[in-house]
């Protein structure tokens, strides 16, 4: 995703980000710390101001957007890129997921798919490095590490 950066001498910097549908998000960061967020509805149109934030407000909004305040873990799309290709992704097991009812040892996820289960969240508790005899249940949330290919395999075979 391309973020373009423009210097605004005496003011600060302007960042532009294509947000799809022909729209562009324009963020002006003032030297004073003030941040203005605009949306340009289409290329060539005037940007319309959406938010005018102080430095402090901008940091709070920024961390909310980043997911630090609340992480929507249950969605398919939430993923964190760790390195070049390695991603951390959240999966929720459905009733009919192939590994439900199996233990970690039986499922042998790493050998089957290449992905590694880093942690499991059940009923609000997070279990780190679960024992081999842990049995998967529906609605378990799995936090899985692997490359994109590993994730595709995992999504196909385990969930």
């Amino acid at each position, binding site marked *: 995703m391309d973020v373009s950066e*423009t*210097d*605004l*001498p*005496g*003011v600060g910097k*302007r960042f532009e980000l294509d947000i799809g549908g022909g729209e562009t998000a*324009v963020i*002006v960061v*003032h*030297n*004073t*710390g003030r941040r*203005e967020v*605009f949306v*340009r509805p289409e290329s*060539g149109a*005037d*940007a*319309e*101001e959406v938010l005018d934030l102080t430095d402090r407000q901008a940091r709070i909004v920024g961390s909310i957007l980043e997911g630090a305040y609340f992480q929507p873990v249950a969605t398919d799309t939430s993923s964190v890129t760790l390195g070049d290709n390695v991603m951390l992704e959240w999966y929720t097991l459905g009733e009919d997921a192939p590994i439900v009812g199996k233990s970690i040892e039986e499922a042998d996820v790493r050998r089957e798919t290449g992905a590694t289960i880093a942690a499991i969240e059940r009923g609000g508790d997070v279990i780190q490095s679960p024992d081999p005899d842990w049995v998967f249940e529906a609605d378990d949330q799995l936090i899985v590490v692997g490359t994109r290919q590993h994730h595709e395999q995992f999504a196909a075979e385990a969930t």
Partner: protein
Amino acid sequence: MVIAVAGELIEVGVMFAAVALAGAIARGLRQSVIPFYIVSGILLNPFVAGELTEAVLGQEFAVGLSAEATHFIELGAELGIVFLLFFLGLEFNLDRLLASRDRIGTVGLIDLVINFGVGFVLGFLLFGDVLAAFIIAGMVYISSSAIITKSLIDLGWIANEESSPLLGTLVFEDLFIAVYLAVLSALVAGAGDVTEAAFSVGLGLGFILVLLILVYAGTALFTALIETESNEFIALRVTGVTVLVAGAALTLGVSEAVAAFFIGMAFSGTGRAEKLENLLEPVRDIFAAVFFFWIGLVTDPMLFAGVLGIIATAVVVTTPTKLLSGFWSGKVYDLDDRRSTRVALGMVTRGEFTLIIASTVLVVRDRGGAITAATANEINAFAVGYVLVMSILGTVLMQYSAVFETRLTAWRNGE
């Protein structure tokens, strides 16, 4: 002590209150504060408030600022110039200029050749003097970074493409004006004697050379100077260095404004420019307001009558020149007609730098330089009147740009 300064303290209080009120009125009218600060100075000056109260109440009750208060305001105005130029240096980034030198260079030269060129011819026709022409050229060339940048933010243009040529041109102008002020202060100090003029130009250039070396070789020194966690110490040390060097420059007969510009550049090299801007912005704003007030204070509005024709001519001639160079600059940045129109309208505003040039002329008048007192007064009255018109005109043009954009687009499409 307490009794001795009581009178002056209340006078200075009156000045700050007047400036604050002027700012509030300007904001209410959605106008730039600069013309309103100037008018508050004019209203309180001996030619207006003094004459009026003397006529109504008699000489004993004539209202006017005392010599001491006026002296304080003059010194404050000087600090205003120093801080305005210090900030210009602080925000000036040579790397940024060099990185986009092709486009900034092109628009900068278009702006310079058209406006400085026409200004020079106009000045020569009006005053019949090369030095006066040089001064008028500078005055009508330099747009107001402060007002234009403020309007860009207020109107939201800062998020659009038109801000690039506008800010790019201003960067070029800022650099040019630093060199211009150095040359101008040397020229006007020369008093007509060629040897003396050559000496003062040489001294000025020598001083700038020393400052340039300081900017490039002294980064470690300046960094060490502000290497403290205390905001108080940072503000004090920066102010100490800046005002001291500016004062030294003025003592040597070199432009204090240029010295402050280079000190600002030196501090921007430390990578903590933003921090310094945040800390010193209120200081700059206070003294800049004093500067505009002072300009009004020393201007006899009766002199406007004498230069009304010159002001009108300059407005009529130098508004279209900025429109032309601005529109062309927009085209250099590949903008469409609508956005180029905005660049054109945006560049019309003249403000603080025109007045700083005027103040340089006044300093020379008081010292006895290459310009006669009468011409100096005339040029000063012109500058004040011109800025009053152009700052308001420019702001209004930007606010109503939609009208011009529609007209021009319709016309260019042959409707």
